[in-house]
């Protein structure tokens, strides 16, 4: 199912952050959003989830309008979100966090089995509270919890931020597995090497808009476009 976003304008109170965003995420593809701090990448993901209301514009998932739905209805339509900083339910156990992820599907056992196959390390931690996990394990749990929704579109906000290299590799492998399963992945990422490894296309944001979308295969490390839009 393709996610189609047209002319989204949104912000916080009187402050407009997104100033007419157009973009598309295709099934089985990873679309990376890149840009400097404050250009609206995270706000765009929150807007797609209904957490920041869109003042105007449309969001369609396979033709179904999402922009006017209340936030709690959006995950039921097939979108899942892994926020920056993970935002786990810290005092709840790993199993309870995953159960929250499985509420919409209602198929607790099947979704649990699926995500524990993808992240077997979490199986050993099911009774542990989320706040006691290591940073990498917390990120695995954040992704696993979102995958319990069996999403058509997965929104990931800087999932490898602050992780050690072995964990980054694990997370990246999980993203590639999801891509192979036909999930449309929208990834906010600042690391050029990760983008080049995972992305099918890269959308560069500036001033609350997507200025340029480039197929990842046309990009090289140190390309001019990274310096212009990301500053690396």
């Amino acid at each position: 199912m393709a996610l189609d976003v047209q002319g989204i304008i949104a912000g916080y109170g009187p402050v407009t952050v997104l100033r007419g965003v157009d973009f598309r995420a295709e099934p089985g593809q990873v679309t990376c959003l890149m840009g400097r701090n404050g250009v609206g990448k995270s706000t765009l993901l929150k807007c797609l989830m209904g957490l920041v209301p869109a003042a105007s514009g449309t969001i369609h998932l396979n033709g179904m309008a999402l922009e006017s739905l209340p936030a709690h209805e959006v995950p039921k339509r097939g979108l899942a979100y892994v926020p920056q900083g993970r935002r786990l339910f810290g005092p709840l156990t790993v199993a309870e966090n995953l159960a929250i992820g499985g509420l919409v599907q209602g198929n607790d056992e099947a979704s649990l089995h699926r995500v524990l196959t993808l992240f077997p390390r979490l199986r050993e931690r099911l009774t542990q509270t989320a706040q006691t996990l290591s940073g990498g394990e917390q990120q695995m749990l954040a992704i696993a919890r979102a995958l319990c929704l069996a999403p058509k579109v997965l929104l990931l906000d800087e999932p490898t931020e602050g992780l050690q290299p072995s964990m980054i590799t694990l997370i990246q492998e999980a993203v590639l597995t999801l891509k192979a399963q036909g999930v449309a992945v929208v990834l906010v990422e600042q690391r050029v090497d990760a983008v080049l490894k995972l992305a099918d296309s890269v959308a560069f944001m500036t001033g609350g808009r997507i200025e340029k979308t480039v197929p990842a295969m046309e990009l090289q490390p140190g390309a001019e476009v990274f310096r212009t839009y990301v500053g690396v």
Partner: protein
Amino acid sequence: MTFGPFLLLALMEGLVTAAVLALAASGLSLVFGVMRVVNVAHGAFYMLGAVLAWAVAQHVPGPAAIAFAAAIIVAPLVVGALAAATDGLILKRLNYDPEATIVATIGLLYMIEQATLSLYGPNANPVQAPFEWRIQLPWFGYSGYKLFVVLAACVVLLTLWAFITRTKAGLIMRATQVDRTTARSFGINVDRVYMGTFALGAGLAALAGVLIVPIQQAHYLMGGDTLLLSFIVVIIGGLGSLRGTLIAAIVIGLCDGVISMFFAPTLAKILATLLVAMVLVFRPQGLFGARS
């Protein structure tokens, strides 16, 4: 009577106070924990429970036990429904802003009290206990109903604990308590959770009111003391911590029983307020609350 039996009697009286207080304060703690709303009208919900128990007792014919059983079901449901309506009509429209909801619930407290004064009157009215059984100890006789209140409170609180920790609805409440924004992005209708929590909190207060009314008569101003003691218990236990609330209720209830028996009820209130002041100075998050 010698000192020992006096102390036993004081502790038994304190246990009854603790049981009723634990019920009322757990409702207040639940509402604050999940919704971050300081419900100043909580004492009014407690009073409504007692007044509704009196009203049901007037309209249900037959043995007192049947009228009491009806009151135990009807009063929490009616008060819970009123609280749910309050949530939808007032608190939700204020976007659960902490300061605004305090002012709104102060207003609600006065509205409920004045409406009760108009409809029920200024008199304190008794409600007959469902049974007149007395336990005869070697030193004194003691009301079996009071022991029933302790037992009933224990059963309700255990059920509440099982609901919160063992059911899907409880899991949803705990997730919403931790992070309502993230809860929304997992399909949880936070507005509905808040409405249910506010109704449950008010229902617990009303149930406490029903249980106390055969011991203490129903009066339109009876919620004030309970509100104060509930705040004391919730602050000492730790805002939002159910375990802390229960332990603090037992401590405050027993102290209230003993100090009231050997000295004066006013001294018990003064010492409880002093204890709150000390907790706020030395451990502001309460005995079992998480540091923010």
